[in-house]
């Protein structure tokens, strides 16, 4: 199709464009021009008393689950899973369900404005023409090297557009960041795969095909990579759908997470010894089978037993379990990778699979033939912060990320931001980073937006998930893609030539046009309008054939591996183990119903808590709800105690996701942010070693009750 298409032409095309378009999509492409009108002039797809359903993609995390949103007379009523979608097959998680409380959040940013001073609530509203002027001027007058784009982990079409824009300007490529990526230690998993297999990509662990699964810290039932897809596989494993027998699951980690609570065995090993345990298991298996595996050859099993706290006999039993399994799988993830030796841990754990015929493949590329662009590691974020601190960044554009809240405070993002003369945020919600921006030009909510999303992992089928507005934008917001395109047109010259699109949809259609020629999709169309209509209607485009990459394990057998001891920062007697809230995730705290959904393991609602072994608590004279000061060498905060029966005595765990200082009435001033006291040390892959900080606890003598569901059920007599 022509890449230069005016709105008028487009509407004509849509109208003529055939009966197919009109009939097959509920909403049709014309929806992007729909404005709120009196109900006497309702859009044609709205029937009184009838619901209309739209397919789109969830933006609560970057896993790209397909949604079907029920709307009723222009309002979004209920989120349901898209039954045909390759990632979630009709299912959703709690965060996906609560996305409507984001859409209709009372604290959303309602229009573009200029802040009188950073951090100030005093604002001057602007109109969108002025906003586009500001963006165009910033892009034109800043030297290309002084421009920085910081984007979130979704949506992908915006990332592609900003990449094109940065290229046209000669500016550095955009950087992607999200706390989920940080807590998954994604860069570590990818680097370990590269090192062990010599192949690039994120591994796809097919739990459903395994009958014994060992997981080292991977919280795949909570937030890890693609939790809804992994929960489906877990269910297959437990049903024994693809194996005759129910699968057996063992989780190794210092604190029983929600994932570990579903395990048949939870093995609380000493933090940082995960790699050694994997090596010891590998050595026992290799010896029993008379194999030589370089990565495991020099391992002393007794020494590992002593260091990890798992006895030799126990290690032998676990190794036998793996050996006897018809198909075993070992998964590295989460806190096991978040130590200073995290990369080596990941490599040792991954290498163990070489002995097991494990059902691991590498996630397929997107239908475009490229991979999902992974978020930056902490090291890469530190490099950006250093550039900001040195004054090399004159204009920072932020969309979809909240680094002021999410990054460890010690990294100094907030201070470095002060050195940037111009900060423009495209935030939908008034988060901490938007509060420090000079201008805020709010993007639509995900359910009001166009877009597409690649999969980082989550399906064996190459998939592009589609987004479309399910409701007309509620406030005076503007798609960031449209703002940038309009700004590019104002700049003119080479930049305008590089982005010759009238609006966001034109850009998306231009990007999609190569897919018209692909033959193995589950639908095809002769021209882009029909293709785009199907793309909206079905919630995306995916191939009908699996295209995962087979791993080659040869390299793994000969590769030597030295796992060093993990190093811990600080003098305290406890390891601090932050974990991302299974319910709130990184950005759920502003949704009131998510706040009231109890944490699965503790049943706590609406606040933060620190988990401590009841025995240790008794020795320290601590009761539930006692407020303690948690002190690391980076700082301290106060939080209530929760005596958690399934945690090592030398570990305290704290939830990440609360502790906002902005972000609306439901998030602000609630709980604490463990990022405040984390030491920003990294592992060899550059990911944050978030489990490497040691802390001590100080009594404050205060008490602050935490709200939890379990107290009404009478678990503890005293409540």
């Amino acid at each position, binding site marked *: 199709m022509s890449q230069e298409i005016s709105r008028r032409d487009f509407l004509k095309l849509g109208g003529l464009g055939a009966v197919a378009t009109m009939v097959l999509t509920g909403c049709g492409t014309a929806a992007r021009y729909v404005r709120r009108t009196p109900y006497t002039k309702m859009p044609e797809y709205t029937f009184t008393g009838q619901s209309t359903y739209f397919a789109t993609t969830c933006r609560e995390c970057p896993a790209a689950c397909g949604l079907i949103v029920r709307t009723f007379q222009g309002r979004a009523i209920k989120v349901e899973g898209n039954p045909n979608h390759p990632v979630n097959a009709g*299912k959703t998680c709690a*965060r996906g369900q609560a996305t409507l409380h984001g859409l209709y*959040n009372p604290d959303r940013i309602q229009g573009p404005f200029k802040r009188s001073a950073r951090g100030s609530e005093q604002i001057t509203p602007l109109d969108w023409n002025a906003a586009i002027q500001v963006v165009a001027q910033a892009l034109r007058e800043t030297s290309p090297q002084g421009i920085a784009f910081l984007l979130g982990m979704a949506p992908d079409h915006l990332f592609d557009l900003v990449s094109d824009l940065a290229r046209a300007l000669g500016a550095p490529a955009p950087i992607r960041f999200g706390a989920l990526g940080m807590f998954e230690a994604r860069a570590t998993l990818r680097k370990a795969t590269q090192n062990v297999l010599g192949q690039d990509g994120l591994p796809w662990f097919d739990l459903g095909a395994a009958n014994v699964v060992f997981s080292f810290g991977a919280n795949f039932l909570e937030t890890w990579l693609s939790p*809804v897809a992994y929960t489906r596989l877990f269910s297959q494993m437990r049903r024994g759908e693809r194996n005759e027998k129910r699968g057996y699951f063992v989780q190794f980690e210092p604190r029983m997470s929600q994932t570990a609570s579903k395990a048949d065995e939870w093995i609380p090993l000493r933090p940082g010894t995960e790699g050694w345990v994997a090596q010891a298991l590998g050595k026992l298996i290799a010896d029993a089978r008379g194999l030589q595996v370089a990565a495991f050859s020099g391992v002393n099993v007794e020494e590992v037993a002593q260091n990890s706290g798992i006895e030799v006999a126990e290690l032998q039993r676990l190794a036998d379990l793996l050996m006897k399994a018809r198909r075993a799988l070992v998964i590295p993830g989460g806190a096991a990778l978040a130590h200073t030796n995290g990369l080596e841990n990941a490599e040792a754990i991954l290498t163990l699979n070489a002995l097991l015929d494990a059902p691991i493949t590498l996630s397929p590329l997107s239908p475009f033939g490229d991979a999902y662009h992974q978020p930056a590691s902490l090291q890469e974020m530190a490099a950006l912060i250093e550039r900001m601190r040195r004054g090399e960044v004159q204009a920072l554009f932020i969309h979809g990320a909240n680094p002021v809240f999410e990054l460890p405070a010690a990294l100094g993002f907030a201070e470095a931001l002060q050195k940037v003369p111009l900060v423009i945020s495209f935030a939908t919600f008034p988060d901490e980073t938007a509060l420090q921006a000079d201008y805020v030009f709010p993007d639509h909510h995900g359910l009001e937006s166009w877009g597409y999303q690649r999969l980082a992992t989550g399906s064996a089928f190459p998939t592009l998930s589609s987004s479309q507005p399910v409701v007309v934008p509620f406030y005076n917001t503007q798609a960031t893609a449209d703002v940038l395109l309009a700004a590019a047109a104002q700049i003119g010259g080479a930049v305008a030539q590089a982005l010759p699109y009238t609006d966001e949809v034109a850009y998306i259609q231009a990007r999609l046009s190569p897919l018209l020629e692909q033959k193995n999709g589950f639908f095809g169309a002769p021209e882009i309008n029909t293709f785009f209509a199907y793309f909206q209607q079905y919630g995306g485009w995916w191939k009908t054939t699996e295209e995962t990459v087979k791993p080659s394990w040869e390299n793994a057998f000969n590769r030597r591996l030295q796992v060093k001891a993990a190093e811990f920062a600080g003098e305290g007697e406890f390891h601090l183990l932050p974990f991302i809230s299974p319910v709130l995730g990184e950005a759920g705290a502003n949704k009131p119903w998510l706040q009231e959904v109890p944490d699965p393991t503790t049943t706590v609602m609406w606040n933060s808590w620190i988990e401590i072994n009841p025995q240790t608590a008794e020795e320290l004279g601590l009761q539930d709800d006692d407020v303690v000061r948690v002190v690391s060498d980076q700082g301290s905060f106060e939080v209530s105690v929760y005596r958690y029966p399934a945690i090592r005595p030398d570990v305290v765990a704290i939830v990440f996701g609360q502790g906002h200082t902005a972000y609306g009435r439901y998030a602000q001033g609630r709980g604490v942010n463990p990022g405040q006291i984390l030491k920003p040390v990294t592992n060899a892959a550059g990911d944050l070693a978030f489990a490497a900080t040691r802390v001590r606890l100080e009594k404050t003598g205060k008490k602050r009750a935490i709200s939890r569901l379990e*107290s009404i*059920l009478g678990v503890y007599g005293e409540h």
Partner: protein
Amino acid sequence: MEKTLTIPEYKADWAEGENGKWGMVIDMDLCTGCQACVAACAMENNISFVGEEDAGYGRTMHWIRIERFWEGTYPEIRMTPYQPILCQQCGHAPCEPVCPVFASVHSQAEQINLQVYNRCVGTRYCANNCPYQVRVFNWRDWPRPAPLENQLNPSVTVRRRGIMEKCTFCIQRIRQAEDVAKSEGREIRDGEVVPACAQACPADAIVFGRLDDPESRVSQLANSPRGKKLLEELGTLPQVTYLLGG
């Protein structure tokens, strides 16, 4: 069997159990405790959130909650399997005979415990008598700041202060499926009615359907030797079956 699956012309014609028994099976080996059902239920049924303080006093409005208990002490500690608890839709319900105003009544047609909101005067006798603690009371008119009201589901009544409420097996979805089936002149297909919790469940641990149809998935699972009723010894005849063990 053909007869019992027929939908009568007038609802008043329904005899007890004639229009089926709706039931649910929850596989506790599959439930991951992820709370997707809890959130989905709240979104579908216009359930209010109560805020931190009232939640701490046990006034949350969850129609479904996930229970778990601890066994033993560290390091020999185990968590009992997550168990989603919702109204068990008892065939012999303790909540019904105690209601002075007949707000808590039994539906003859679907064999479901109904709560008639506009009869309820808030005595809370029903909740006191419920052994499963699944009835929740509106202690206040819970705030729902604008524009959150845009999300309210028009198929479900919005409750106010002083009203008792509980899980309805998403009766609005059952009714809708009945109407659609009737207008198309056919029976309801197995799997056609899916309550919000079962629809969201990523592990597919919740199965819903007609217990009076021996061919339905829910009937087959309910007859599994793993099946147990909650507090079976009370003789409440629950319509929810839990599958224990693996």
